[in-house]
């Protein structure tokens, strides 16, 4: 326990790339693979997840002094389920067709491990401000990951980005990219790319360090 806890800014920045929920922690892959066939649905999902993540992180942080170790997961689930239900009802009321398109994936945010993970790692131990910036950073990281995968898939599958035509009409639409196999392939390749880039940066840094 002697280890220093990260500050709010560190938590925020960590979420975007160094601890990106999808590319680094490999968490929340179920919605990542399921809803990224189009940019619009991916962004709605990212928004709903961000709402739940921020609210439950703040809530957990507020009550962290009362948490009993053996009841903590129960309380996380209770909190998360409440905010998920609110998000789900809100989508059904104001974005009906999107809510139908996302189907059960919005209620399934309850079991999205990104959120339980953040409650356990950060907000059950740190004050509200840090917990909130952690949730913001993680949401942003999750949103960017979904956006990157959805962009690749939608453009390859339909030649359009968020419904706008970006490739010439001669583009042979690659339907498989919109289907689950396309999700796995895109996810795998982007994950590889992220790892390759960071590994390269590390070697460049260390060789620069040894040259001095």
């Amino acid at each position, binding site marked *: 326990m002697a280890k220093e806890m990260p500050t709010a800014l560190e938590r925020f920045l960590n979420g975007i790339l160094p601890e990106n929920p999808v590319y680094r922690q490999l968490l929340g892959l179920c919605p990542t693979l399921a809803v990224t066939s189009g940019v619009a649905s991916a962004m709605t999902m990212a928004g709903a997840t961000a709402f739940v993540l921020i609210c439950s992180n703040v809530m957990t942080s507020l009550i962290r002094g009362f948490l009993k170790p053996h009841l903590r997961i*129960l*309380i996380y689930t*209770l909190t998360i389920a409440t905010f998920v*239900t609110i998000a789900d009802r*809100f989508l*059904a009321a104001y974005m*009906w067709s999107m809510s139908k398109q996302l189907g*059960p994936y919005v209620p399934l945010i309850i079991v999205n491990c990104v959120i339980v993970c953040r409650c356990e790692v950060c907000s059950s131990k740190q004050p509200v401000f840090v917990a909130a910036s952690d949730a913001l950073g993680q949401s942003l990281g999750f949103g960017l990951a979904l956006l990157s995968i959805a962009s690749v898939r939608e453009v390859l599958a339909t030649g359009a980005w968020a419904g706008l035509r970006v490739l010439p009409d001669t583009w042979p639409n690659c339907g498989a990219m919109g289907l689950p196999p396309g999700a796995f392939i895109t996810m795998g390749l982007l994950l590889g790319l992220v790892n390759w880039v960071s590994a390269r940066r590390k070697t460049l840094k260390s060789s620069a360090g040894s040259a001095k």
Partner: protein
Amino acid sequence: MKKLNTGLGYLKQAWLVLVLALVFGMALANVQAALGPRIEQNKLDEALEQVPLLVRGAIAGVPVGLGDSRVYGALGAEGELLGWVVMGNGQGFAGRIELLIGLDRSLDTVTGVYVLDQRETPGLGNHITDEKWRLQFLGKKTHLPLEVIKEGVPAAHQIVAVTGATISSKSVAQAVNKAVNLVRSRKDVLQQETRRLEQMQPASKPRAGE
């Protein structure tokens, strides 16, 4: 230490869970009260949009007064009654399934089934929304209750289940049976409604999508 595990001890351990459950429950009740009517309206709008797809030739649906059940008369271009659209529901594998069932004028034949709301397993149970699967219901006679079979060639009153999702398929068939039974038992009311709908002036007939 032993005393902690009885009565007051349990309360001491779990008070936070109880308080949170109470607070969250009340919050959710408020959310539902605020948003519920809007969601119902969305469903209703979608139901009316689907009427032309469920009863061939229909251009509009008008709600019919049949107690608290949701039934629409499907009107054609001339304001004539072509069939009925009935809202049905049942417990699926993962949640409530809500359906729209199209029936012909005499309530003898199913003219279409549409899944309005479902929470079935993605990739398995949610195939009940596929048009190809739903087409099986088209033309089924309503005098025999529908049955679900797992494989093979279906008889006139049988439906082949979605592979790996027998429970979801059965729920849909049962919901159809339930809704059909309900409207068939109220045939007299529907006959009165038929007369009322057909007496309406074509000028005042409602249009789809408005």
